[in-house]
């Protein structure tokens, strides 16, 4: 029998920096990023995997960090919105979001940008249907999505620029 867990120690790499954490094994990756690592760019919108505001990459795969227990990222590479821009310049997707009006209130934007980066990584020349499908796990209440689609199209038009 067991009466619940004490905190465990685990290591993972977040935005290229290795981190050792003392955490409850079932703590949400979202909370560990925001509270333990103070990486507050990842947002909580719903807590049930519907809105995508908490999207991050774990070992290159887009996931909802509200649904990932931190124990399952032991040894993994995690990338958040804070790890998307280069040292000085923004990524092509970020730049396009600014230019095209893809961000309004900004709360869905970090997750939406990661979903767009993921889309372009798998589908460099997406059709309109690809874009709609690729972003359908990320809810935006401000834009009606049109300017977000425009931003994705602009980002892939910038040939040679990394997404």
């Amino acid at each position, binding site marked *: *029998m*067991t009466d*619940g*867990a004490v905190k465990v120690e685990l290591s993972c790499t977040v935005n290229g920096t290795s981190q050792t954490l003392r955490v*409850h*094994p*079932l*703590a*949400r990756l979202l*909370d560990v990023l925001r509270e333990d690592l103070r990486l507050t760019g990842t947002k909580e919108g719903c*807590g*049930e*995997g*519907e809105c*995508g505001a908490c*999207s991050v990459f774990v070992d290159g*795969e*887009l*996931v*909802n960090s*509200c*649904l*990932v*227990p931190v*124990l*399952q990222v*032991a040894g993994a590479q995690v990338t958040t919105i804070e790890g998307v821009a280069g040292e000085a310049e923004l990524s092509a997707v970020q730049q396009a979001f600014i230019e095209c009006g893809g961000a309004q209130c900004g709360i869905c934007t970090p997750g939406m940008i990661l*979903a767009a980066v*993921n*889309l372009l990584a798998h589908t460099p020349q997406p059709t309109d249907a690809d874009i709609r*499908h*690729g972003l*359908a*796990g*990320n*809810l935006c209440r401000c834009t009606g999505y049109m300017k977000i689609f425009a931003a994705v199209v602009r980002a892939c038009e910038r040939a040679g620029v990394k997404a």
Partner: protein
Amino acid sequence: MRAYLPDYDLRAPKTLADALDLLARDAGVWRAFAGGTDLMVLLELGALAHKNFLSIRHLPELRGIEVAPAEIALGALTTYTDIQRNETIAREFPLLVAAARETGGIAIQNRGTLGGNIVNASPAADTPPALLVYDAELELVSASGTRRVAYREFHTGYKQLNMRPDELLARILLPRATGDLKTYYRKVGTRKAQAISKICFAAGARLGHDGRITDARLGLGSVAPTVLRCTRTEELLRERVPDAATIKEACAMLAQEITPIDDMRSTADYRTRVSANLLSDFLRQVAH
């Protein structure tokens, strides 16, 4: 976060054998935790009743898709994304691909597993109707051995499974006998993406040279306490030509066979009517 985390435990046994040992030793204490896309939602809502979990996500024996001549074996940890990327599945099991593509968004598809979808036992789950149509079998492992059960006999009541607390779902097996099966899939959930099914309808049929149905398979979700293989309607269709009269009879039978309810997502009337409409649409397509 409405749960009190210190009440819970999650451990990652090093090997499958360790996991099975734990499951066998403390009967009913531990439960498997795969991709977390269902359990973490309950945790957040403070509604996760069970407290102690074994993370199985890292166990290699439960991963991978193996293609053998007679069947294809999907590790229980196969994700919806894995399903969409496999060429054999795309060619031979289109219903499963359609279901995987319409389950959640990309981030859910990357994380959610086929095994989890089955064992979570939601009557509204999206892949089970397809698995029912393909006559899937499940391979369950425990410290005392391995057994196979037909998927259609797996769900015995609302959230009731033909599975012991010491067992893990290891693999899902699909017979590669889908060659001439005409298939049909429709998920109805108000919006196109990220929806919980109000009705999930998967079907397959074969037609003989004389235009009669030789094989009919209907898998439905959200219309009963479990996902449902509608065998009475299938029986009615066998050896019949799918003409208007047959379609009418079959729809009436289906309406009797399913037992949908009114809930916050839809109504029993709607579910009954739309299920019949979809069956009728399917049979018309089969006839052509």
